[in-house]
């Protein structure tokens, strides 16, 4: 990224959120600074051609469109794309902080003051497309933000009333009923919290999330969310430390948590800690098909909505394929040479790019 002197001067060299507005005849965008209340626009150029502008971005950013939003840091020359109007997979990354430390976390937490992230998001929400179908809130642990989180939920409710909002949270802080109530009051109409539960016993869950007492807090949190009428999705990630009791996990959920809206059984994404702990976590999905089948069947039979994410279709038993959802975003997934000619390729999510590190040795195209 390059900024001319005028831009430096104008922004006081502070990082800011920029919104790409209408494109002019010369190909440059008008850039609105959302971090200050200033009606002035800057000009933004992508690529080397076109007229000179206040801010220039390299050619690889050519996919940006009017309506997209970025964070621009003049000091480090960093830019980060935060929102794309054309994408169905916009995630609002709220914080890097977390009160757990899961063995397979794809986004290892850091204890830093990153409250600016939430402030940025609050500035962006009013400018998002009103017809945005879905938005995700992720982290870190979003509930650590307290007032900023409820403000954010309120902003979505106000500015994006028809958007489905999905938040990933370990649910532990909802063990405080008052917090669950506040979230229920603030939330937009279409809101769901995805809460991970990795076992049917305390020690096994606490081990996976590396936090004593987490199992109990999460379960109290789930009960409180149900009590205040917030919809809940349960998430289970299958790896060597969770696969063996999948059937018992299903029984536990059906019996104790029949109120959850859906249960998602996920494969590992080999990022972050999942890489550091790969040898300990890795199990070829072919080896746990039995447990997975019993788990999914039990949940389905109990009347719960079940989905399988991040699993290649050729590894799933045929009875399980109807539960598989193409969960890896289109721009994140890849296929292997083995996939050539596979008849299921259009329905199969393929792999995260990280799967090049390790993947099942049983990938085979289905003819």
């Amino acid at each position, binding site marked *: 990224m390059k900024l001319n002197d005028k831009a430096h001067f104008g922004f006081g060299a502070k990082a800011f959120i920029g919104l790409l507005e209408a494109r002019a005849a010369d190909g440059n965008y008008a850039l609105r600074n959302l971090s200050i209340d200033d009606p002035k626009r800057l000009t933004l150029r992508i690529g080397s051609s076109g007229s000179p502008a206040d801010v220039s971005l390299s050619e690889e950013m050519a996919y940006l469109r009017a309506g997209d939003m970025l964070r621009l840091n003049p000091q480090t020359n960093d830019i980060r794309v935060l929102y794309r109007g054309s994408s169905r997979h916009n995630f609002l990354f709220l914080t890097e902080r977390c009160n757990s430390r899961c063995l397979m976390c794809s986004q290892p937490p850091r204890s830093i003051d990153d409250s600016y992230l939430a402030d940025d998001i609050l500035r962006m929400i009013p400018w998002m497309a009103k017809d945005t179908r879905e938005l995700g809130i992720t982290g870190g642990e979003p509930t650590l933000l307290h007032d900023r989180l409820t403000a954010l939920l309120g902003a979505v409710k106000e500015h994006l009333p028809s958007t489905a909002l999905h938040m990933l949270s370990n649910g532990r802080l909802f063990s405080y009923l008052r917090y669950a109530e506040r979230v229920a009051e603030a939330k937009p109409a279409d809101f769901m919290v995805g809460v991970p539960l990795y076992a049917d016993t305390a020690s096994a869950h606490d*081990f996976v999330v590396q936090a004593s007492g987490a199992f109990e807090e999460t379960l109290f949190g789930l009960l409180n969310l149900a009590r205040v009428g917030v919809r809940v999705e349960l998430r289970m990630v299958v790896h*060597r430390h969770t696969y063996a009791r999948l059937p018992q996990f299903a029984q536990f959920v059906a*019996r104790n948590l029949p109120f959850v809206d859906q249960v998602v059984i996920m494969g590992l994404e080999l990022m972050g800690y999942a890489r550091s702990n790969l040898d300990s976590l890795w199990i070829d999905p072919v080896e746990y098909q039995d447990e997975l089948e019993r788990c999914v069947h039990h949940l389905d039979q109990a009347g719960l909505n079940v989905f399988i994410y991040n699993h290649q279709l050729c590894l799933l038993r045929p009875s399980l394929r109807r539960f598989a959802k193409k969960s890896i975003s289109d721009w994140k997934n890849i296929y292997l040479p083995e996939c050539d000619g596979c008849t299921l390729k259009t329905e199969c999510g393929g792999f995260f790019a990280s799967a090049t590190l390790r993947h099942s040795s049983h990938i085979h195209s289905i003819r």
Partner: protein
Amino acid sequence: MTKLAAGFKQIGHYRISDPYSLLPFRFMRLDAGRHVLTNMAGQHLVVPAGIMPELVERRLPTGHPLVPDLEAGHFVTQGADDVHLELLAAQIRTRQARLADMTALHMFVVSLRCDHSCGYCQVSRVSEDRKAFDMTPKTADRAVDLMLRSPSRQLKVEFQGGEPLLNFPVIQRIVERTKKRAGEQDLAFVIATNLAFVTDEILDFCAAHQICISTSLDGPPELHNTNRPRPGKDAHARTIDGINRCRARLGHDRVSALMTCTASSLAQPEAIIDEYVRHGFQEIFLRYISPYGFAVRAANKVGYETEQFLEFYRRGLANILNLNGEGVRMREVYASILLRRMLTSQPTGYVDLQSPAGAGLSALVYNYNGEVYASDEGRMLAEMGDKTFHLGSVHHSTWESLFLDSPLLDMADRTMTEGLPGCSECAFQPWCGSDRVFHHATQGDAVGHRPTSAFCRRNMEIMRHLVRLLEDDPAAAEILRGWAR
């Protein structure tokens, strides 16, 4: 286990080193080698019998493979005590949700008259032309107004007799008045009829008001006609003809059938079930006959021992499971109710498996003359001179007085299986219920004596049988789990 990266702790760090604590649970012998445990909310676990001393003395090592099952099933706790209790409480609340909702089922005996003279009939037969045994419009109106005082969100109105179709104008009146005066409640109407008198006009009315038909089908023609004598000996043919006409006019699902198991039925569960399959039914209730009314008097003719019924039931269930294995859809209703109580946290409305007893709290009976009873069997007893279960009358009772100035509260108090001698320690208590009328009629005592109670024997053995099937027969278990929903 391969090592975790630096900074991560092994599972041992998260295990509590103290022995586990016991949560309240019940247990008993399932068979020679096994015990069955049930937690407070009715979830069960089958364990080897030999393990019980170690288990209850908290000597099972933490690494024992049963410990996670015991913990996940809320039998023991290791460091997350409060959440176990909270989850149990949530399940118990859900299971008992109907209690707060109050009386949902309202049975109207619109006529005592009948054209059949069944040996096991639970009410007085009266020749067809005696108007004195019909409910009058005035009584009907009062009964409806009383029923509408029920706080229940769902009201199920069931017309009974005698043969209720012999007094159809009063059925019409009750349906119309209920619909006009009901508030937010969900309404459902059922007519329990032998279908001998069904006409196109009646069917038109049923279609217009979404009324369901429940009829009796005891099995193949010979059995049905023996059980249900009527002039012309054509009860079976008339029933089948009636079923077909009702289905054609109202839709297949609007018609259900009930069988009563008599001594002549005992030898032929398969034939009875086949008859249901042949006529396109997808469920059958292998129903025990109750010892009231005429059934008590004619006991030697139609009555039979509990053991014989159990044999009949097991054979019938095996037959139904086989049929399912062959792809025929058929469900046994009693097993389905029990399985729902065993395998889920959902409430069940079946009156005879409630604690406190469902009589009155779940169901009320308005007799043709306006007298109100806690159950149909209570009404039978009154016909025989025993008014124990009489709660009041539509002519002078209020909704409150039916419950408060009547034997009902005392009944509820004395029929909670949680505290009944025998039941309080029975592992099947969370699935079972109590039938005060039965114990009153057969043992002369509201509480009853479990070791000699046919109700207890029958239910205990059926539940034991279901637990074993779930444990030992994977194919059967798969089908049975499907019925629990």
